[in-house]
């Protein structure tokens, strides 16, 4: 039983393997980009709005509200990054309804890539808001003895983000796979439902944690 979609290889050339993770990720990206292009192609400002445009407006407004509630003052600056994180993870987990589909977030490569991008984003937004020296000085708070612990916590947060998402999604798919060999009739359906729920919750948790980390890095202290 494959532990992750990385092991399902479609095509190989040298050391480059086209595995299920890459194929599914690109298919998802194409579907989301084309869908968004199609919906925002004809935006109506007043009058009757099409259903899809209303749906997208709800999603974007909700994400903006969440970002503002966490404490980031200008949510528009962070909306593209955090919105993309949430939408990609949510869509890739919800599409588990489709039969024969392996969520790419069930592979440690995808979740590590997402966690690394959050790490880089925290650095980037922190330096952009506070300047290089200001951001580096934030590592010395509350006392300079905390410097190694702050650095370690940066890396362990990134690691925890990756492992959390990977563990949740991988265990969801694996439980269904194991149950199919034991009680194939009704019980795997319930575990699939639970997998859908945890997929959405994990998408929300990932993006909220990214927002909290960015808010902690961009908080300007009054000295």
């Amino acid at each position: 039983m494959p532990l992750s979609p990385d092991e399902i290889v479609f095509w190989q050339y040298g050391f480059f393997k086209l595995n299920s993770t890459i194929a599914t990720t690109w298919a998802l990206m194409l579907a989301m980009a084309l869908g968004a292009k199609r919906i925002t192609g004809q935006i109506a400002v007043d009058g009757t709005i099409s259903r899809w445009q209303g749906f997208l407006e709800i999603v974007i407004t909700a994400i903006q509200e969440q970002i503002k509630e966490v404490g980031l003052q200008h949510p528009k600056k962070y909306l593209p990054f955090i919105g993309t994180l949430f939408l990609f993870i949510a869509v890739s987990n919800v599409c588990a309804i489709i039969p024969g589909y392996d969520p790419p977030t069930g592979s440690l490569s995808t979740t590590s890539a997402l966690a690394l991008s959050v790490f880089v984003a925290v650095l980037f937004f922190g330096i952009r808001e506070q300047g290089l020296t200001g951001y580096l000085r934030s590592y010395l708070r509350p006392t300079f003895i905390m410097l190694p612990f702050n650095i370690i916590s940066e890396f362990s947060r990134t690691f925890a983000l990756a492992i959390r998402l990977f563990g949740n999604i991988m265990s969801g798919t694996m439980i269904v796979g194991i149950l199919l060999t034991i009680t194939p009739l009704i019980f795997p359906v319930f575990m699939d439902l639970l997998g859908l729920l945890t997929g959405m919750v994990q998408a929300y948790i990932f993006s909220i944690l990214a927002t909290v980390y960015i808010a902690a890095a961009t908080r300007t202290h009054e000295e």
Partner: protein
Amino acid sequence: MTLIAIVSIITAGITIALGSIAPALGEGRAVSTALSSLAQQPDAATTITRTLFVGLAMIESIAIYCLVISMILIFANPFWNHVIAQAAGK
């Protein structure tokens, strides 16, 4: 070489069994405190609920770490793969 298999299986079982005690207790305490604070201040419901979910996810990750270790021990065990490769090479 069945020793590797025996130890892996036993360790996988004990890892997930012991590793999910503490997170479950912690999550129970977190939810109970969240419920009592919701009862005291229903106006802050959205903040409390969101903080509760974030905290639950952080606590859950400890159990997830143990689960990942057991899964690796059972399904992607490198030592067992090494034994299999040696037995196949013989």
